[in-house]
């Protein structure tokens, strides 16, 4: 074998085995994580140093129970594995298993082995063996499996070096032979004929190709049609698949009989006692589940959980958000006063600083949302929600699994759309993708937050509930309700075929690991900030340019005003204000805003809001940043105030009252609730549905709805 310094290693395993934590542990934080927060839905890669001259490129594959796919997520795994002997080959595959469900994990392992790729079995959560009363004879297990086995405890950072050694050993020895030889047990003659068609591949690989119509990229057309031809003449594919699985379990039971023993009566420490209570048959699975999935209490609890989440977002985040807002306003004026006057200073104080402020201000709300989603998933409650909601969601053409994208959508539609990949029915998945952007994502939050703060009084109702918080909650409900109504319409009208299959594992209830939750929140928030941040910052700079440049009329502003007011008794301060305001009106962006003003006037908006709307079509949150830029260009530098104060003092010249009054505010809230204003989401929907048809339907459908509803709201209220 030729000596090479970089090898490819793929991680594969059931969901909930700690595979992603292992990936983090091996590659550190400098991985190429999918750009978006959310569970492992995309191929993630990172590098890890195995030993002095040997580096590994590690790929984290989506979690799966078996190679045989029932969802898009799982077909990615199959595709990668079938390609593993081509140039994109994996030199070693690490199957991550957890000690508790070893039997079920070994099914996947046995399938991988039969692909005849060098494999390491890594058994995670080994630290829990003792208190769960499990004993495992590693030496014997290695012998029976004919494979390296490593015990790991990723949470405690144990066994990582041993795993690296095992990867290196397995790579050098390149042992690769099937574990089960299923062909001999089912219909040897049939499988011999299959092998004859194409001896280049192992029997199991050929078997997977014909059962799933999934082929390696390198296969020639003749080879492919020969296999398809063979498939069309086979009658018993399904029966053989069943036999195969049963045979695999027989083999696994045989192996585990002598190596894996469980004595549940042994156990210790406080955490494990709590864990023991949660996983106890009577308390955990009977009592807790009786409450969480109860016909009435289950829904009340779920609704209460949502209420707590949304109330917290508004309450906990408001103080840090105000501080951030004020902090950036101060920084901006400080820079303006202390740097020499000029284009660069103006770019920094009016373009870049407000732009960055517009990104940072998200952190409190996003972090709180991710914190709750992470907690719900870690504790195992999320699966119960799926169980509770499945029948209801099916009436709307979705699946219980659609609840997770819809809730994740409250953070960001991008990971939510990607999280639909584990929904097996195409129609259920498509509807979920199409309606998810109606849920209130965190990019809408800053918009809602500032408008609510302007038009809704900060009062308590019934002594406890905050009126502003309630308004926000109503907007969330509006978003969900619209998503549901849209889903019903799509369910009735879409003529899309596809069978769906639903099975959800209900994991043990467990106390969340606060370290895991913390890392999760930090990573997701970081990914979001840097992903969305680039768009926000670049748009801020473009806006600054458009607002501080213009055609000839822009350049003449100063001269005209100075000439016009020369005989009036006006203070220099007043004149400066008039110049700034007139300049904005005549700048490029002012011209853009004015040209759409006739269209948006019936909604109660002026050209300044028009500018914000235009830039929002790149990303909603830019609304706040845009207004910040517009008003900071406009305002006199002597009295820099926060954006909220600036918006509150904005006057509508037609009526002489506040621009952001109740009807305009409500109209804007409705517009932002419905309109599809996120380029990034449209791009993801295009990628996930493999067609421009669906994102265009979203863009125009949602846009029309937004316009009509805002029009009605404004006309009724004003």
């Amino acid at each position, binding site marked *: 074998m030729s000596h090479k310094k970089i090898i490819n290693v793929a991680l594969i395993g059931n969901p909930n085995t700690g595979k992603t934590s292992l990936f983090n542990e091996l590659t550190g934080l400098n991985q190429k994580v999918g750009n978006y927060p959310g569970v492992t839905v995309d191929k993630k890669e990172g590098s890890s140093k195995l030993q002095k001259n040997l580096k590994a490129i590690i790929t984290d594959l989506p979690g799966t129970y078996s190679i045989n796919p029932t969802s898009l997520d799982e077909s990615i795994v199959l595709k990668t594995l079938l390609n593993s002997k081509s140039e994109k080959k994996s030199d070693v595959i690490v199957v991550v298993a957890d000690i508790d469900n070893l*039997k*079920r994990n070994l099914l996947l392992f046995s399938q991988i082995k039969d692909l005849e790729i060098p494999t390491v079995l890594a058994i995670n959560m080994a630290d829990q063996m003792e208190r769960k009363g499990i004993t495992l004879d590693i030496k014997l297990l290695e012998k029976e499996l004919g494979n390296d086995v490593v015990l790991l405890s990723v949470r405690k950072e144990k066994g990582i070096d041993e795993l690296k050694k095992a990867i290196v050993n397995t790579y050098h020895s390149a042992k690769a032979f099937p574990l089960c030889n299923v062909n001999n047990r089912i219909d040897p003659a049939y499988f011999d004929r299959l092998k004859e068609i194409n001896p280049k591949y192992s029997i199991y690989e050929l078997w997977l190709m014909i059962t799933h119509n999934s082929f390696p990229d390198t296969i020639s057309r003749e080879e492919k049609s020969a296999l398809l031809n063979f498939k069309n003449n086979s009658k018993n594919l399904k029966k053989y698949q069943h036999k195969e699985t*049963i045979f695999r379990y027989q083999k696994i039971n045989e192996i585990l009989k002598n190596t894996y023993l469980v004595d549940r009566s042994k156990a210790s420490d406080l955490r494990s006692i709590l864990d023991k209570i949660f996983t106890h048959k009577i308390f955990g*699975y009977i009592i807790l*589940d009786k409450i969480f999935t109860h016909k009435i209490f289950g829904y009340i609890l779920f609704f209460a959980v949502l209420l707590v989440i949304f109330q917290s977002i508004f309450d906990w985040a408001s103080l840090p958000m105000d501080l951030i807002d004020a902090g950036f306003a101060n920084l901006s004026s400080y820079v303006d006063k202390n740097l020499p006057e000029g284009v660069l200073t103006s770019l920094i104080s009016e373009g870049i600083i407000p732009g960055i402020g517009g990104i940072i201000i998200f952190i409190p709300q996003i972090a709180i949302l991710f914190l709750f989603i992470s907690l719900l998933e870690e504790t195992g409650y999320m699966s119960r929600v799926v*169980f509770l909601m499945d*029948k209801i969601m099916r009436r709307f053409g979705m699946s219980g699994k659609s609840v997770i994208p819809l809730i994740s959508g409250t953070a960001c539609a991008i990971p939510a759309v990607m999280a639909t990949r584990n929904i097996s029915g195409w129609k259920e998945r498509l509807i979920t993708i199409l309606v998810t952007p109606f849920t209130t994502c965190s990019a809408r939050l800053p918009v809602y937050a500032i408008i609510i703060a302007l038009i809704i009084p900060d009062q308590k109702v019934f002594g406890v509930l905050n009126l502003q918080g309630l308004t926000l909650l109503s907007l969330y409900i509006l978003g969900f309700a619209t998503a549901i109504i849209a889903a019903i319409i799509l369910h009735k009208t879409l003529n899309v075929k596809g069978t769906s299959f639903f*099975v*959800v594992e209900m994991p043990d209830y467990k106390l969340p690991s606060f370290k895991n939750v913390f890392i999760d929140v930090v990573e997701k928030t970081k990914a979001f900030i840097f992903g969305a941040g680039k768009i926000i910052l670049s748009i801020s700079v473009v806006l600054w340019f458009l607002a501080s440049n213009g055609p000839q009329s822009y350049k003449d502003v100063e001269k005209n005003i100075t000439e016009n007011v020369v005989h009036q008794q006006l203070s220099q301060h007043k004149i400066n204000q008039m110049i700034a305001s007139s300049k904005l009106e005549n700048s490029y962006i002012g011209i853009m805003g004015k040209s759409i003003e006739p269209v948006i006037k019936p909604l109660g908006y002026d050209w300044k809001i028009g500018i914000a709307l235009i830039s929002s079509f790149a990303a909603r949150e830019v609304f706040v940043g845009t207004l910040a830029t517009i008003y900071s260009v406009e305002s006199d530098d002597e009295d820099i105030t926060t954006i909220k104060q600036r918006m509150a003092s904005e006057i509508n010249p037609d009526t002489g009252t506040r621009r952001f009054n109740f009807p305009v505010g409500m109209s804007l809230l409705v517009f932002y609730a419905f309109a599809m204003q996120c380029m990034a989401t449209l791009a993801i929907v295009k990628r996930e549905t493999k067609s421009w048809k669906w994102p265009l339907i979203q863009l125009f459908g949602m846009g029309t709805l937004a316009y009509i509803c805002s029009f009605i709201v404004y006309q009724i209220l004003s």
Partner: protein
Amino acid sequence: MTTIASLHIGELAYISEESLNEIPLKLLEMGCLPGAEVELIQIAPLNDPLYICVNGSHLAIRKETAAKIQIIKAK
């Protein structure tokens, strides 16, 4: 025909050999094998899906799937 869909909460049964070819592959792979003990733990509101424990795995499946899996009730 006795299937998982006809179990009462808390009732135990064994999956029979007869319906083997009707059991979706995915469920087989998750441990829903002939001979395995199955218990109905909870029925969701609106009577669907069903929450079962089979072969040590806790799973939620839809009623239409459950109705395909024949069982022998434990005495």
